[in-house]
């Protein structure tokens, strides 16, 4: 029997993304979201009070000899066994699953799934979607855990560092990562197919691989602060802090990471991520609906490749996001 609470729960079953603030453990975030969703589900009006019938024997004033009638009166008494105060709220636990985790220091897009959508989460986890990060670094310091909150180990000068030196180092790192990508994709390099995949940018590692950066770009440089944009696979946030440290070492100086911010996780961008004041059931329902409609729109666009997408730059953009689209198309159609 579907009660209003069950209907609200079915509306909540889907994938959505939230913005995790820095300094908070992801588990605490997940628990907060679960508590808020439970509040929304149990706020639905409970089912009406149930009654049970009790037969009471009426006293027979005249006991006729031989024949006495069965005089029983039926009384409808409330059955308290299913009262919400006795049996508790309908939902006391819902399964909220987390996609790629974020550690305490980082912030950014965190994908969550409720109920049946957790199956799609596992597909997302196993598929080779890339994630976008924005790393903020500071030159001239080295700490034990590669971030600015750790114990200081070394201080260096950084006056000799210029923008083009930094970009050269980043290009070198990107090159080595590209080679790793080619190796782990296990594609025979001397075939036409491999060339076409590489041109379109659709090479992906086959099976398990170490963290690989598919894109690396310098966004902002103002010594000692600089910002990098990274697109990567199979990474951990600590690995990214280490990347910054290595960049510093390559430049004959040192660098620490001041912030790791995930701006995209597969198809979930930061634009639609929910901030902590919106971690409530109506906002989550809307986010799920919006994600589903955007997926449908994306699928419609994808199934019409003959459509003219306009200028060359637009076509290039489509090509860049097409590999991402194609890779997670499998689990997207579920939700």
């Amino acid at each position, binding site marked *: 029997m579907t009660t209003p609470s069950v209907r609200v729960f079915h509306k909540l079953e889907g994938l959505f993304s939230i913005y995790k603030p820095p300094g908070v453990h992801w588990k605490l975030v997940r628990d907060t979201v679960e508590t808020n969703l439970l509040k929304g589900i149990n706020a639905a009006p409970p089912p009406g009070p149930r009654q049970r019938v009790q037969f009471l024997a009426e006293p027979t004033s005249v006991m006729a000899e031989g024949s006495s009638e069965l005089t029983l009166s039926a009384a409808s008494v409330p059955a308290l066994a299913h009262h919400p105060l006795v049996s508790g709220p309908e939902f006391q636990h819902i399964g909220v699953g987390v996609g790629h985790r974020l550690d305490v220091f980082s912030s950014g897009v965190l994908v969550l799934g409720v109920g049946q959508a957790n199956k799609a989460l596992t597909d997302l986890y196993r598929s080779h979607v890339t994630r976008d990060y924005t790393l903020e670094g500071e030159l001239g310091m080295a700490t034990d855990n590669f971030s600015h909150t750790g114990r200081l180990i070394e201080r260096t000068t950084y006056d000799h560092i210029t923008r083009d030196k930094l970009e050269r180092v980043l290009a070198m790192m990107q090159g080595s990562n590209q080679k790793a990508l080619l190796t782990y994709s296990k594609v025979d390099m001397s075939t036409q197919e491999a060339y076409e995949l590489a041109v379109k940018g659709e090479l992906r590692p086959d099976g398990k691989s170490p963290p690989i950066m598919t894109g690396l770009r310098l966004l902002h440089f103002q010594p000692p602060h600089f910002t990098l944009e990274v697109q990567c696979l199979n990474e951990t946030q600590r690995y990214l802090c280490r990347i910054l440290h290595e960049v510093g070492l390559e430049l004959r100086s040192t660098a620490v990471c001041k912030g790791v911010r995930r701006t995209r996780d597969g198809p979930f961008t930061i634009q639609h991520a929910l*901030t902590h004041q919106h971690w409530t059931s109506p906002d989550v329902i809307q986010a799920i609906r919006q994600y589903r409609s955007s997926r449908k729109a994306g699928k419609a666009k994808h199934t019409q490749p003959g459509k003219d997408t306009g200028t060359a730059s637009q076509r290039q953009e489509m090509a860049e996001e097409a590999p991402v689209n194609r890779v997670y198309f499998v689990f997207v159609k579920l939700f």
Partner: protein
Amino acid sequence: MSCVFITDFYMALTCIQLCQRCTSLLRSRSVGIITLQYSTDAQNWPAALWNSFIVPVLPSVLQRSPSPSQTRQRWNLGVRSYCESHAKVQPSQTKHGNTDELPGTDMVSYQNPLSHQLRDGGMLLKEWQTALDLDDAPGHSALEEISHEEAVRMDIPAALPPVSISLKDYVNESETLSKLVQLGVQLWKLEQRPNVGSMLLRLDFQTDVTPRLVFLKQLGVEDSRLGYLISHNPFILTESLENLQARVAYLRSKKFSAESVASMVSRAPYLLNFSVKRMDNRLGFYQQQLGLSAQKTRDVVVRLPRLLCGSLEPVKENLKICKLEMGFRENELQHIVTVIPKVLTANKRKLTQIFDYIHNTMNIPHDLIVKFPQVLNAKYLRIKERHLFLQYLDKAQYDPAKPNYICLDKLVSLPDEAFCTEVASATLKDFELFQKTM
């Protein structure tokens, strides 16, 4: 056929009869997290019965239309007999022809081995001093015809399980539980606590619960709060009335007004379970440590009555932190505690984190914090986000001497919408976009 099969219905009937009439026996058993041992598998019953049945087996259902006194007598005998000699199931001696019927229709009658006479069958129990013999033919059949009057007069009460993990099995029959539900007590939470469920079942509504509810009402506690009170502190129903009255008298003697006592009791449900000595100890501690006057101590305690309930160790540690780590002076601390008593029971780590951010990152001096102690009660993330937003807009100026001063009170206590429009002169959308760049 050798086995005696017992029908569900008659099994239930015997249990029902004894369960319904032996509430006093139930009181001596604990109801709670013990799992249900009632087994309806006919094959296993004979063995399972002796092992699992806690409540003794009563005289048989064959006693159609027994008089209440007679039944009670027999039941009492039955109890004694059970205690003396582990219950024996006596098959009644009937025609063997009955065994040719469907297996589910036979039944076994339970007799106690002491002598009393069966009404039907005319068999004296003395003759049945044998042990259980399952190969014997069963007694009266379920299909035996009875007259209408007997059928009407036969009282078949509900099947109450002897042990259960939930109170919902008893709530329909128990007056106490149904009245508590009407008051608004959350039984589903209370039954999870060990032994509380059985304690509530054992209470009698007229003699135990009503006097205490009347006492609380006379104290001034509102009807709507009674449910909350009992949900959080069911033991107020077992505390003796003399103790409760003595504690209220003590609080009144310490010049707490009647309304403040009522408000304290409704907000701190465990207050009246603590002894006078303990409350006195705590009141003395707060007055001494904080150095406040009697009236101010009273105000602080009325604002936060759980100060009188919990342990003093966390309070002592918080006071030490405020004095040594944060460096507040005596009079500053007094002012903070009178405005925000929650500082005494706040989480140490969170308190130090907030103070560290406010004092070292936002560069707010001590006297300004003392002027607005609400900042110490706020959420760290909220303060951080709003401060960084104001800093981004170049509006983070907290010195009252300079122009464009932002009051700490407004920074912390306004809701997001009001904060954005009044303090930051920006839209809510901008604030959310900024939050995503942190």
